[in-house]
């Protein structure tokens, strides 16, 4: 199971990456991330929404209400241009952490 701090820190880039593929709504976003992490990233479901609202406030994503065929209302989120930029930046930063970390892994100490 991933540490809570790491889950929180990765929330924004993960949501942006997911929305970069297609628009989606809160519940589906959580299911997708749970599935992709083989359930090892435990999110309290409700904690996703403050992050979504923060991203929307920052102008990185936008939302619209859509009525599904079963009459259920869903709030769909999609990526905006600043969101794409933010995602590129997140990727760069995470790649950096990753490269430093793996660099240490390969290093042998005499």
């Amino acid at each position, binding site marked *: 199971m991933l540490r809570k701090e790491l889950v929180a820190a990765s929330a924004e880039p993960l949501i942006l990456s997911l929305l970069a593929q297609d628009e989606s709504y809160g*519940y589906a976003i959580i299911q997708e991330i749970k599935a992709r992490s083989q359930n090892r990233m435990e999110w*309290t*479901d*409700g*904690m996703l929404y*403050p992050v979504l*609202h923060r991203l929307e*406030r920052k102008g990185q994503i936008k939302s619209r209400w859509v009525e599904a065929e079963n009459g*259920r209302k869903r*709030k769909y989120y999609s990526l905006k241009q600043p969101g794409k930029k933010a995602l590129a930046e997140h990727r760069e930063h995470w790649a950096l952490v990753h490269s430093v970390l793996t660099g240490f892994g390969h290093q042998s100490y005499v």
Partner: protein
Amino acid sequence: MFDLEQSITAWRQQMRSSGIQTDALLDELESHLREETSRQMRLGAAAPQAFESAVQLLGSARDLHAEFAKERSPAITRWRRWSAIGNGLGLAIYLALQARVLWRAEPSHQEIIVGLMGLAVTLGAACAIWRLAPPVMGRVTNQTVRSWIAVGSGVVGMVWLIAVARFLLPSLVLTPGQFAVVFLWAMFPLIALTAFLVSLEQRQSASVADQRYRQL
């Protein structure tokens, strides 16, 4: 008998009472609750258990409210800033009115009032320059220009200091109080120039860190 609609209404009330008041937000959370409940029912859970478990997964009303409260904080910060500005203005107007009364009543105090007002304006301007210098200097990216600003600030500061110490102060006949005021005013250009130098330095170390980071 379990009634999903009733349970959802009760849940919404509970959310409201712990501070989540926005309808749009409650609608969104409710939509999530319904999706999760029906997913669990599709997997074979009975409706009451499915609903209970969905509520648990969504998180307690208190936790959710705390998370959303964090999101709202920028607006609160803005509000606080405006109230500080309002209070400051009020205080300034009050002091100005008091000074006017004193000015009329006691002509012998006029010098002190002018001196104090001058000091207040000087301090205010110094604070403003310290506040504004970093963003202004941050825009100057050309290294040559930055160097010239740094050198220029240093030279102007030295020249001013010498002029004040060598020519201005000796030529004035001042009481100790007046001397203090004139001295503080004389320091003002130095404060401003230091602000520019310091903010140049800050930006410099930030951009060096940035470059190092990029090289990695």
